[in-house]
């Protein structure tokens, strides 16, 4: 395990030397993205909600909420509650 971690740090160090440090705007974008994702998850802690409900609770734009939701559903953190018209609801996947 120690060997593995050492090899990874060496590779990342060599990469940083070759390409320079990670772009600041990329890190900023990632931080913002993570914080918005957390806001969406926090909004859903109190129970299932639609996108407009999450948007008004978090202050995020509805289109951004949809993108965050798409990622959270794809990677197994949220599930969809079906609907025929209007808006779908989303809820946090219970950990088994």
């Amino acid at each position: 395990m120690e060997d593995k971690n050492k090899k990874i740090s060496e590779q990342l160090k060599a990469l940083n030397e070759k390409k320079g440090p990670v772009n600041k705007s990329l890190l900023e974008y990632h931080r913002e993205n993570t914080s918005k994702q957390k806001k969406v998850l926090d909004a859903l802690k109190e129970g299932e909600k639609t996108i407009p409900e999450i948007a008004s609770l978090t202050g995020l734009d509805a289109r951004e909420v949809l993108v965050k939701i798409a990622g959270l559903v794809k990677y197994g953190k949220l599930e969809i509650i079906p609907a025929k018209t209007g808006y779908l609801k989303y809820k946090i996947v219970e950990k088994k």
Partner: protein
Amino acid sequence: MNGKTEHNCDTLIVGSGIAGMQAALDIGDAGFNVIMVEKSPSIGGKMISLSKVFPTLDCASCITTPKMAASSHHPRVQMMTYTEVKNISKKADGFEALLIKKPRFVIESECISCRKCEEACPVYLEDEFEYGLGVKKAISIPFTNAIPQFPVLDEEKCIRCGACARVCPKDCIDYLQKPEEITVKAKSVIIATGYEITPMDAKKEYGENKLINVISSLQAERLLAPHGPYGKVLRPSDGKIPDSIAYVQCAGSRDESIGVPYCSRVCCMYAIKQAMLLSGSLPLSEITIYYMDIRAFGKGYEQFYNQARAMGINFVKAKVAKISEDSQHNVILRIDRQEEGSKPQEVKHDLVVLSQGLIPSRKEFFGLDVKLNEYGFIDSPAKTFSPALTGIDGLFVAGVASGPKDIPDTIMEAGSAAMEALNYLKTAKIS
């Protein structure tokens, strides 16, 4: 650049859409060796991203996946993915191609496709397989049934946190991997580089790609696909299930002003198909197709069109002069009905799909002196009898690279390109 490698084959196929795969299988089955090169991380081309296909409404992925598996497992077909053909030159004894294999930053021979790296990666990005609608990670396997199932690390978006490498059970993340130069010597070549759709901003009057609820026809395919980006057809501005959806026909074809004066042959049919699928998945929604004339030219296509009419899809003969939006991002179409005495009218829809045309995927073909028609598609000197010929001995063309066509015609032409290549391999004096 990493070391150079050299390969030999009977036929080099550029592109692994349905045209490339079909030609590869036919030539491989006849006992000749094929190298099939694909610039994307997976084979399958556009067809693997479609929802269902007209006019049978077969699931596109269910019929493409077996072809992908067959060509990837074929003993005489070698596939090279995430590899781009840069240049092809004609030599006395065949062709020589220069290829660049892009780094995935994953040691392919070790990877067991467990997806642990993808799960661990904290960086979420727009997913190009979903044409920008869905989300992927900075390291991800391109899509569920991609072949091969290797992840690709996006070096421009990676924040170098090391998480993927730490969880990889096979230690196969290689952050320092370099591109590889490959030379292929081939006796014959088939170009199957396919198409792109006319850009969303081609027509200024249609919102210049700034209207969030005006989407492309390929995005609509993904919304309708079983494993689409949102799990249901939702409009991008707020995730609403759209109550009213419109199609704008000839949104990137039959228009001199954008340099695409020809009919793209498939847009009427794919719009009708998508409308039928929408009326199945959103039975309470109203679906309208604004068209000038419907071109249902193939076998069973007229019946398909009539079936759509019978299902209650509105066909409105009107020219869409302008597309804009209101403050809620509802889409406003300014239409001129093709009826005597009718005045321009504004209509609102929740979601609008542009039925874009097909244009060549490349402006030039690898430095080869191949003749193109006035629209940039490869021109055959014998269109009527031998559409796969290019005018260069040993060089053939298949699929949309030679002009817009549907899947059945693409498959037939790929078979024809394979036959021409086999004939050439058997009769030409090449060592």
